[in-house]
């Protein structure tokens, strides 16, 4: 429907709002932003040009992150200290990635990132329960920056001691470079870095990732805005649709069973990984 925007702008806007609501719901639920759902929806269903859809997707991630934060109780799950620390590394790395993007083949990067996403899906499938780190000593960086936290669950408060901080930071650096090269938010790697490497509880990891992706996407959006690449006719309805979806997803995070949350994450990451591998091999355009 490439001409729907011109022939029936109201129907176009409503369709964008519906797609964005779904993307906002999934994005805020699992901390990935929802761009992987939004971009194909806009391009394939509505014939929006790829560049316009990518710019709208960055805007969507910022609104997802902010709308999710409007829900009461979210702050007790978000570990702002870990989020800010990792975001500094990811942010600088993504700038390096964007600058060096021309030196590396996009196909090779897509293959690499697609493979990485499938590995993340595999690792998530292997460990469906949070690891209890309350008896383990904290990493020295964790003590210095007070990164440890407590998650309030139905079974009472659960302490977690943040582990392997340098490894988590290094993974964020690599993820940042790849994200910058491919123009992605890399939410899946952010969740992986906190959940599997730093041994944070999965719920806290997704909610903290939601905070981080907002900052990452804001950096990209500001650049797109400065260069005049954001089309309000697409990004506007996207923002309007994202807000209720993200609020609902955020409300669901602390109510959905941990296993179900991990399964949704797993399915979404695996699908995105396969999609990226198909793109790299030329099966998908």
């Amino acid at each position, binding site marked *: 429907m490439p001409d729907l925007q011109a022939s029936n702008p109201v129907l176009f806007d409503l369709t964008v709002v519906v797609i964005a609501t779904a993307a906002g719901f999934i994005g805020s639920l699992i901390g990935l932003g929802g761009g992987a759902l939004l971009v194909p929806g806009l391009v394939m269903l509505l014939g929006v040009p790829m560049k316009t859809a990518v710019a709208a997707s960055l805007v969507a991630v910022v609104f997802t992150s902010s709308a999710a934060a409007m829900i009461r109780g979210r702050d007790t799950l978000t570990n702002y200290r870990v989020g800010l620390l990792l975001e500094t590394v990811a942010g600088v790395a993504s*700038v390096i990635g964007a600058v060096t993007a021309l030196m590396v083949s996009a196909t090779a990067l897509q293959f690499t990132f697609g493979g990485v996403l499938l590995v993340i899906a595999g690792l998530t499938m292997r460990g469906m329960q949070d690891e209890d780190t309350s008896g383990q000593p904290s990493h020295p960086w964790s003590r210095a920056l*007070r990164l440890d936290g407590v998650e309030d669950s139905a079974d009472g408060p659960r302490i977690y001691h943040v582990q392997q901080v340098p490894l988590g930071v290094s993974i964020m650096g690599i993820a940042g470079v790849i994200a910058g090269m491919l123009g992605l938010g890399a939410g899946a790697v952010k969740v992986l870095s906190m959940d599997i490497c730093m041994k944070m509880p999965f719920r806290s990891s997704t909610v903290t990732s939601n905070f981080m992706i907002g900052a990452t996407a804001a950096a990209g959006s500001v650049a797109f805005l400065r260069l005049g690449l954001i089309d309000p006719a697409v990004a506007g309805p996207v923002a309007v649709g994202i807000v209720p979806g993200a609020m609902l997803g955020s409300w669901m995070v602390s109510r959905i069973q941990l296993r179900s949350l991990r399964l949704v994450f797993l399915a979404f990451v695996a699908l995105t990984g396969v999609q990226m591998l198909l793109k790299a091999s030329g099966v998908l355009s």
Partner: protein
Amino acid sequence: MSDPTEVEHLRAQRLDPDTSSIQRKMIRILVWGSVVLIVLGQWIALRSGEHVEGPRDVVETLRTLPSGRSLMLLGLMIGLATPVVRSLLLAGWFARRGERAMTLIALAVVAIMLSGLLLRH
């Protein structure tokens, strides 16, 4: 069973309820304000038959306020400013607590977010 003393100690490291409430209110104002401006802009554009499609220069667009397109863009800009304001609030909170390292980290994140403003065509 978690150690109650450690639980209380770790809870004290979280964003305090007052700052958390200010943050939530501020985000609500910015996000809903942004949505209202976008919807208003779209409505004006639809009513007047204004052409809003396609990317254009930000400053030139804002000069046409209160056109539909400019209101939509202003709404988007307010929404995009939310993570910046949020990180500034966190930097202020860490500074009040005397946590220099975390204050600098939060300010670095703000600088990274705003680095896109330095880009030129």
